[in-house]
Every structure is written in C-alpha cells, then in structure tokens.
C-alpha cells in the first residue's frame, strides 16, 4: 500500500509540492492505526501471518509475519514516519522543486523497511533489504546538483550494496544447509557446521555494513548531506536498525556458533568507542549526531549480538529509547538549521524569545541519550549494565568496561551537542583555527514545526518516569526473539546494585569530560586520527577505477587484427585441448582416386596464389579458381546440387568483385611489421593444424548412424520430393532456410543503401565541389 501511494506520488505529485508530504503522511498514519489496533493481540502472544506466492517454480514466496519484535519496529517505523512527513511539510520552503519526489521516496522506503521487519523468510527479507539500500541512495542523493551528495549517496550504496551481496551469499549457505529459508523454522531447528559458520559471517558483514559498524561506518556520517528529515528517519531511527534487527533475530539461535560472539562483541565495542570518540571532534551538529548514532548502533549490536536473554531484553529497551531520543534530536537540529542557516556549534548559542520549547525538548532528549535518571535512556542503560553485570558470558567484564567507557563518551558528546547548540561560545575560548563568527539570534520557529520533536521528547520523558508503560511491548518483543526471556518489569528504581553504581560512575566521568572539554579538545587535536574507513573506501574506489582502466586499455587496443586473432586463438586452443585428449584414429588413405589429386591441386594452388599475389584482381581470380576446385570436390562427393550452386555463386561473386575493385588501387601496398607478420603466421599455422586434426578425429571416431538415414527414407513419402537435399532445405529445415533468406535480404538492403548513399553524396559533392574542396578528391579519381 505504501509502495503504491509512494510510486503514485513520484509520478504525479509534482503539482502538490510541499503539500505532498501531508498526502504521504496518510499512509503511515493508516498503518500506524492498524498496528495499534492489533497491538493488544500481538502483545498477548498472537502472530499475524500473510503469504503471497512469488516465484512458485523456485518455491519462493513473500511471507510476512508480525510478532512482538516486529510489532515494536512496525510501530517505530510508521510512527516516526508519520511525524517525519508532518515535519518535512514545515521544513521545506514551499516553492522547492522535487519535494513530491522526496515524499514519494520516503514512502517507498517506509514500505521497504516494513518489509524488512515483517519478512518471514530470508529471501523476502533480502529483497526488502536491498530496496531500503536503493531508496536510501536516492534519498541521500536527493539534492542531485551537489557533487558531495552524489558521492555520499554512491558511497552508501556501494557499502551497503556490497554488504547486501555478502548477506545474500550467507543466506543461501544457511538456507541450503537448513533446507528452509523460513525464519521461524530456522529458529526451531538451527543448522550447524562449517558452511553455516561461513554463512553467518557473511550475513554479519551485511548487517555490519547496514548498521554502519566498524570498519564500514564511514558512509553514515557522509549520508548526513541528506535533508534533515531524511537523516532523522533513515539514518538514525529506522534503516540503520535493519542490521541490528537481523542480528537480534539470529543471535538467540546462532550466538553460540563459530566466531559469532567474539566477532559481534569486538566489532560492536570498537564501533561504540570510535564513534563516540570521533563525535567529540565534530563542529557540525548533524555530524555529532551521526557519529553518536554510529556509537549507539555499536552498543545495540553488542547487546543483541550476545544472545543471552537479559542482553536481548536490554537491547529491545535501548532500541526503543534510541529511536525516540535520536529522532527527536535530529528534528530539533533541523529546526535550528532551518531558522539559523548554520549547524556550527561555534556560531550558535544566542537565541531570541520563543526558543524555550525546542530547548527544553532537546535537553530532555539529550539527557535521555546521556542516560540521566528520570528519562527512558537511563532505564535502557541500567538494563544493559544489568545484563552484563552478572557475568555468564566469557569476557563479560571487558564488555562491561567497554560499555561504561562508551557511555561516558556518549555523555561527553551529548554535552558537547547541547552546550554547543545552546550556550554561546565565550570570546577567546575558541581556538584560532575555528574563526567562525557567532550569528545573530535566529527567529523563533513555529509551534507546528517543532511539535513532532516535542511529541518524541515527551514520550521519552513519560516512559522514563513510568517505564512500566512499555513493559508489555518490550517483553513481548524480547519474548518473540528468545522464549527464555522472563517477563520484564521495567522500573525506574531497581534498588542499589552494581548497575546503579556503574551508572553513577558513568555520569561522574561524563560530567568530568564535559567540564574539561577544552582540555579534551586539545588532547584530540594531538592524537592522530583513528583508523578511518573513509580512506580505505577512497583507496578502494580509486584502485578499482585504475584496474578497470588498465584492463580496458589492454583488452581493447582498438585494432581489428588483434581482436580477430584473439578470437581465433581462443577457438583453437579451447577445443584443441579436448581434441588432444581424444583417441587418435587410424589415418585415412592419402587419396581415393585421381579426382582427389585434381581437386586438391586446384584448391592448394589457388589458395596459396590468392594469398600471396600482390594484385587485387589476380587475388580475386585465384579465389574463383578455388571455387571451381570446390565444385569439383562436390561432384566427387556426390553432391551435384552443391556443385551447381558453387559455380553460379562463384561467377556472380567474381562479377561483384570486379564491379568494386575497378575503383580500388590495383595493388596492395602495405609494409607489415615483423611482429605482426610472425604473429599472423603462427596463428594461421595453429588454425591449420587444428582443423586437420579435427577432421581426421571427427571422421574416425564416429559411432552413431547419421540422422539423415531417416531423411532418405521419408523424403518421398512425407516431403514429396526425390532430391533429398532439396527436401531437407525446403521442408525438414524450412525455418533455417527462412533465416537464410532473411540474412540475404538484410545484406541486400545494406549493399543497396551503401551504394545509394555514395551516389547521392556524389551528386552533392559535384554541386558543391568548390566549397568542399579537398574532400571531393576521391570522386575525381573515379
């Protein structure tokens, strides 16, 4: 339904302009209403199925299945989708071109994303997955006149597309060894073995690229060139969660297999730390958020990837919390950008009256991100610490330390974001390099503009104060992932325990980093950049281009003889090997009669002469002689039809040759290079040897009776002719002859048009001869 409306908008929405977002909002609104209506049932344990056969021959079908976890994501996708569409209708200037395209693409993306989270088998999931990649590409590159946007879009597409291909390979490996592609069936009877392990690693590569995990995270900050509504929707709340979603689905089943757990944990932790670290370096509000998203995605990957019930439950909570606060922050940043025309934290800071609302919303969402108590982010962080505090998995201590460190960084970049956005930079404290002049207080935004952000912020606050509200949703989601999860009771106060101590530690250290942010910046500028996926990507693309150029330059030198030579050599070498392996039969007799000698003499002498003579006319005559030699062979072989045809054609051909050749110079004048001549000799000798061996072997190894025995028997009774060759041509192989006639007709048309073209040109040249000057010279020679 989304897809249909989205495509309709793409096609016909040009006139709607800004209002197309409102039309587009109808669709997620309807889906949201549907999801809410069914939510009660699903939370109680129902599962909704829908199935549509797709390619019956391959047993492919589009199965949709909505359980608790899918429901959570469906609610997020449709809910945030609705808000983003409403927000976008305020965000863009009314007259801007291409808005209907943006709205339509957002809808198509929504449809694809819903497909990802509701697909019940791996292949349907893959198709929807790739659709999200493609729509993401189109959305990032929406401002298509900007080379930066185009390049970022391409980078995103290449990264996620390559990951998607790896994932498809993984799916096939897993699906084939399990005998099913159905997710539920896979979970019930998980396959094992080396093949499955390899498949899992491939699937993980796909998930890592999609969720911007280290070292594939470079595309996500680049994707920030997209308009802010797009960034808020795709690149923080929904699409980048697809990889996390997949990991969450598979982890409870496969976490104990192969290198899954070490791989997922290390990648997630490294991502979380480097993302947070690099976020502290940025001056652009959106880039801070982007690296923050990378960091949080790493966090999610760790939680879901472990595959223990407690961690899965914490992951579900964090997933919900992150979608709420990150989308909210993006929307507020969009408001600031829209009003102030800059996102640089060194320029921002002074605001007029009427900004209190957005400020409060941003602080609430930011506090949730930092994990400050009374907000939903705090609840999420508590349960995450709780999941690892009890041990159970090898290395959980290290993981826990990593999570705490990551959360400290999170607190620090949240501080950088909020202080940077809302507190003016003190004169003199900014480093000399950042000579960005502070701007005048921007005008206050309209209430309708920041209302979507306010709604999300309020949700964060309410869920933080009364986490029990989300308990049902979260426990049904966690339960559908892993039946081992105990019923969840989210609460603000878990009592004093290790998680609370760690939270306090996080807050204290984070506050320290914020307070000492000038010193932190100084350290950052000294420490060299951490390993950077951007550089690797750039090098890869450049290298690929260079290799492609080399290869093209090598195999396409533009010379016809080289091409022909390569083709002929291939034709000789490849079947030649097969020929060498076949048994060599007895040689036939040298000659079967005097006729053979005559014919062979004519062929050999004529052929050699046609090749070596230097005059065109002589070469053609020699070719004619070979033709008559052929006719002689045909007579000897019992083929009078062929002989007759050969004589006719030969005579006709000679006439045509003479017609053309009387124009051309009499002699060939060419001085071939030594290399060229040697190569020609070698290739032609090889071809000759090959053909000789081929004939002898082909005749000698024949075992089956020829098909034509039946032709002879049936020619008169069924074909109605006594000449079997004629019957074969007009009857048995009638279609072949039709094709032959067509070829002749095409050739005739070609010859006619070429001849006609030159005649007309000749006339023009004659009438404009003085103007054309040198180009009319060939005509003079005639």
């Amino acid at each position, binding site marked *: 339904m989304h897809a249909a409306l989205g495509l309709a908008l793409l096609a016909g929405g040009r006139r709607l302009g800004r209002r197309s977002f409102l039309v587009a909002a109808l669709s997620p609104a309807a889906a949201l209403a549907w999801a809410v209506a069914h939510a009660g049932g699903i939370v109680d344990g129902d599962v909704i199925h829908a199935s549509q056969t797709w390619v019956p021959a391959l047993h492919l079908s589009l199965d949709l299945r909505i359980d608790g976890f899918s429901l959570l994501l469906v609610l997020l996708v449709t809910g945030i989708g609705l808000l983003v569409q409403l927000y976008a209708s305020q965000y863009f200037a009314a007259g801007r071109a291409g808005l209907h395209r943006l709205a339509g693409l957002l809808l198509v993306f929504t449809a694809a994303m819903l497909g990802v989270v509701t697909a019940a088998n791996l292949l349907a999931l893959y198709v929807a997955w790739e659709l999200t990649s493609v729509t993401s590409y189109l959305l990032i590159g929406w401002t298509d006149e900007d080379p930066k946007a185009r390049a970022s879009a391409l980078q995103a597409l290449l990264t996620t597309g390559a990951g998607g291909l790896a994932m498809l390979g993984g799916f096939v490996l897993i699906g084939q060894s399990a005998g099913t592609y159905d997710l539920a069936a896979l979970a019930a009877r998980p396959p094992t073995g080396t093949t499955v392990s390899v498949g899992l690693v491939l699937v993980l590569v796909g998930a890592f690229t999609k969720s911007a995990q280290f070292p594939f995270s470079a595309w996500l900050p*680049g994707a920030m060139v997209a308009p802010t509504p797009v960034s808020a929707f795709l690149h923080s709340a929904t699409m980048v969660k697809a990889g996390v979603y997949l990991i969450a689905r598979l982890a409870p089943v496969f976490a104990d297999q192969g290198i899954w757990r070490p791989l997922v944990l290390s990648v997630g932790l490294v991502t979380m730390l480097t993302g947070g670290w690099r976020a502290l370096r940025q001056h652009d509000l959106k880039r801070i958020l982007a690296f923050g998203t990378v960091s949080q995605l790493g966090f999610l990957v760790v939680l879901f990837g472990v595959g223990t019930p407690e961690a899965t439950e914490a992951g579900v909570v964090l997933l919900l919390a992150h979608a709420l606060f990150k989308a909210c922050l993006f929307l507020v940043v969009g408001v600031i950008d829209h009003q102030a*025309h800059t996102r640089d934290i060194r320029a921002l800071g002074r605001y007029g009256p009427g900004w209190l609302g957005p400020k409060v919303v941003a602080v609430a969402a930011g506090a949730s991100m930092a994990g400050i108590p009374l907000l939903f982010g705090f609840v999420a962080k508590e349960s995450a610490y709780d999941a690892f505090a009890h041990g159970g998995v090898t290395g959980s201590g290290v993981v826990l330390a990593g999570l705490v460190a990551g959360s400290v960084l999170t607190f620090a970049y949240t501080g950088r974001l909020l202080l940077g956005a809302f507190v003016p930079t003190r004169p003199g404290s900014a480093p000399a390099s950042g000579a960005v002049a502070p701007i005048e207080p921007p005008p206050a935004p309209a209430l309708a503009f920041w209302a979507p952000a306010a709604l999300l912020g309020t949700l964060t606050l309410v869920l933080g104060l009364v986490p029990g509200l989300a308990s049902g949703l979260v426990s049904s989601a966690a339960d559908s992932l892993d039946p081992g999860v105990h019923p969840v009771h989210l609460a603000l106060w878990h009592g004093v325990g290790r998680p609370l101590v760690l939270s306090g530690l996080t807050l204290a250290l984070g506050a320290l980093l914020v307070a000492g942010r000038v010193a932190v910046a100084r350290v950052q500028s000294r420490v060299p950049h951490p390993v950077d996926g951007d550089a690797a990507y750039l090098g890869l*693309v450049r290298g690929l281009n260079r290799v492609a150029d080399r290869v093209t330059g090598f195999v396409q030198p533009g010379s016809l003889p080289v091409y022909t030579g390569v083709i002929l050599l291939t034709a000789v070498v490849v079947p030649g090997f097969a020929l060498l392996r076949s048994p060599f039969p007895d040689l*036939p007799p040298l000659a079967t009669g005097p006729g053979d000698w005559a014919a062979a003499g004519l062929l050999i002498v004529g052929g050699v002469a046609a090749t070596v003579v230097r005059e065109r006319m002589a070469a053609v005559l020699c070719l004619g002689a070979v033709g008559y030699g052929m006719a002689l062979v045909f007579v000897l072989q019992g083929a009078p039809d062929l002989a007759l045809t050969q004589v006719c054609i030969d005579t006709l051909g000679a006439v045509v040759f003479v017609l053309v050749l009387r124009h051309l110079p009499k002699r060939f004048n060419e001085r071939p290079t030594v290399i060229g001549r040697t190569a020609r000799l070698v290739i032609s000798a090889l071809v000759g040897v090959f053909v000789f061996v081929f*004939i002898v072997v082909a005749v000698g190894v024949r075992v089956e009776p020829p098909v034509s025995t039946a032709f002879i028997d049936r020619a008169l009774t069924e074909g109605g002719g006594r000449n079997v060759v004629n019957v074969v*041509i007009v009857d048995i192989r009638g279609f072949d002859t039709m094709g032959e006639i067509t070829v002749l007709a095409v050739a005739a048309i070609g010859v006619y048009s070429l001849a006609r073209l030159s005649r007309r040109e000749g006339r023009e040249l004659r009438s404009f001869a003085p103007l054309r000057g040198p180009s009319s010279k060939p005509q003079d020679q005639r």
Partner: protein
Amino acid sequence: MSLLLAFSTALLFSLGTYLLLQRRLSRLIVGLGLMGHGANLLLLLSGGRRGVAPFIGATKGERVADPMPQALALTAIVISFGVTAFLLALAFRSWQLTGDDLVEDDVEDRRIAGALAALADEEVADIEAMAAAGADAEAGGPALGEEDGP
C-alpha cells in the same frame, strides 16, 4: 574422405586466417572466402561417406552420400556470398570516404589505452570532492546550513 582433401581443407583455413588478420579490407574478404570454402569442405568431409548423389529412385543399391552436410553446406555457400557482397559494399564505401580500404584502429579505444593516467571519471571527481569536504569538516571548516530560508 582422403588425407589429401583433409590437408586441403586445413590449408584453406590456414590461408584464410592469414588473410583475415590483415588490415586491408579486400584481402580480408578474400580470406573470408577461403575460410568459407574450407568450412564447406569440413562439413562435407566430416559427413563421412562418399557416394552417389542422394536422389531417390536413381540409385541402384550403391552407397548414397549423406544429404545432411550437403544441405548445411548449401546454406553456407549462399550466406557467405551475402556476407562477401556486403563487405565489398563496405570496402567501396571506405574507399569513397578515405580513398583506401584500410581498417583503421578505433580512435576512442586508442585514447583509452594510451591516456590511462589522464582519465577522470565523473564519479571519481565527485568522490574526491567529498573527501576534500570531509577532511575540511574534520579540520574545523564551517558547517553551513543546508536549506534555503522559509
């Protein structure tokens, strides 16, 4: 089938190949003609048996020649005539335009083969622009707003 005819066939192929690898269009046509003859011989000889013409009722118990390769060869003869005529028309046209029937190298291909380093695809240019901008943002360049005013 005799060894002599097999040798003739191979020789026709070989000579045809030699001519086909040249640049002069009219030699190329002669080469194709020789190869065509060779192919017809190949068809006929690998058909195997030599015999009297396959006319029903005209034979008195002798071995009949295989009609199948004959039919194939007949088609091939006619087709190669069509090809020859078309190539001749091309040669004529080439002579009209350039005063010669030499097949030149493809200029575009030569340019690509020759000027590898100077090649700058649009995508590469875009990516370089992005890299520069990214480095700029890291280094602390201004982060400008993306939208036009309301």
